[in-house]
């Protein structure tokens, strides 16, 4: 009886352990202001549809592995891409466009149309 209870309990407990999202409060979450993010919200609805949580950066080393440090907004981490398809997960209005990285080279990043 106690073993049955324990097994049932473990099954119920394990339900809540799934993965959630590829964005978070640091990079990529929707936002209206900085309270919605760990550091700052890029809220321009044209350049960042729905808002975009990001962090200040001075090099790619300041950004997570799938983001790049670009010379926008005083240095911001944005998702890198190769085609528009790579940016679809961010929602409507996001495209893969060229931008200058923090060193002056051209890179492709997801940004609003």
């Amino acid at each position, binding site marked *: *009886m*106690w073993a*049955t*209870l*324990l097994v049932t*309990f473990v099954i*119920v*407990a394990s*339900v*809540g352990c799934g993965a*959630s*999202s590829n*964005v*978070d*409060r640091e990079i*990529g*979450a*929707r*936002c209206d202001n900085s*309270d*919605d*993010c*760990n550091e700052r919200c890029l809220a321009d609805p044209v350049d960042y549809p*729905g808002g975009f*949580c990001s962090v200040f950066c001075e090099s790619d080393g300041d950004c997570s592995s799938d983001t790049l440090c670009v010379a926008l907004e005083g240095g911001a981490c944005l998702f890198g891409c190769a085609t528009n398809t790579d940016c679809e*997960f*961010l*929602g409507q209005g996001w495209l893969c466009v060229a931008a200058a990285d923090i060193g002056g080279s051209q890179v492709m990043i997801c940004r609003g149309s």
Partner: protein
Amino acid sequence: MPRQLVIALALLFAPGVALAQPGGSIEETTGDGDDELDASGGDELDAAAGQEIGGALGFEAGGRVSPGGLQLTGYHMFRLSDVDWLESSVAFTVGGAGGACFRDRQDVVICDHGLVNGLAGEVAIGIRRFLADYRQDRFIPFARVGVGARFVNFSTDEVRGVAIPAIIGGGVRARLTHQFALSAGATARAGIAFMNKGLGAQPHFTFSIQFAAEFALE
């Protein structure tokens, strides 16, 4: 299903109910292993009052939308039999603040709080069973099952709700005098929480350890 439930409850509680019958005793109902109780003298100490109160200090670990932190618990126990006690409790968990919720790109709110974030207030009721067969002198292990209702709050994110967890745990109690005992134990909670901010029904899971002082009521 109702028949299975009745059988399950009968199996769970039948031994304890048998011990509670008038004139019954541990010696009469639990077999050879209980001879040791008399030799140890611990049985005499446990023949105390039918009610006890206790206070516990512990640490609860949560995560996501389950709070964690320092946990204070007060409880009352009512003896049902030689081994089973009805345990009702009030507990408060106080953890740290800090935002951990965000909106993903589909505008769905996701919370990923750490182990020791948030606040919780809980009332719970359950059965504590002392495992007399495993007694060692003054030390006697116990197991408990129950159900609780918790108010959960993460103030920074303005996320709150009500959780209904099943509670399962166990520990060891050392009776020091007729009126006083110390115990240490661990408890896990698993259930469902109904949260605001569009989170809806969420899994609720925590694990805690506690150290308690228990007093018999004459």
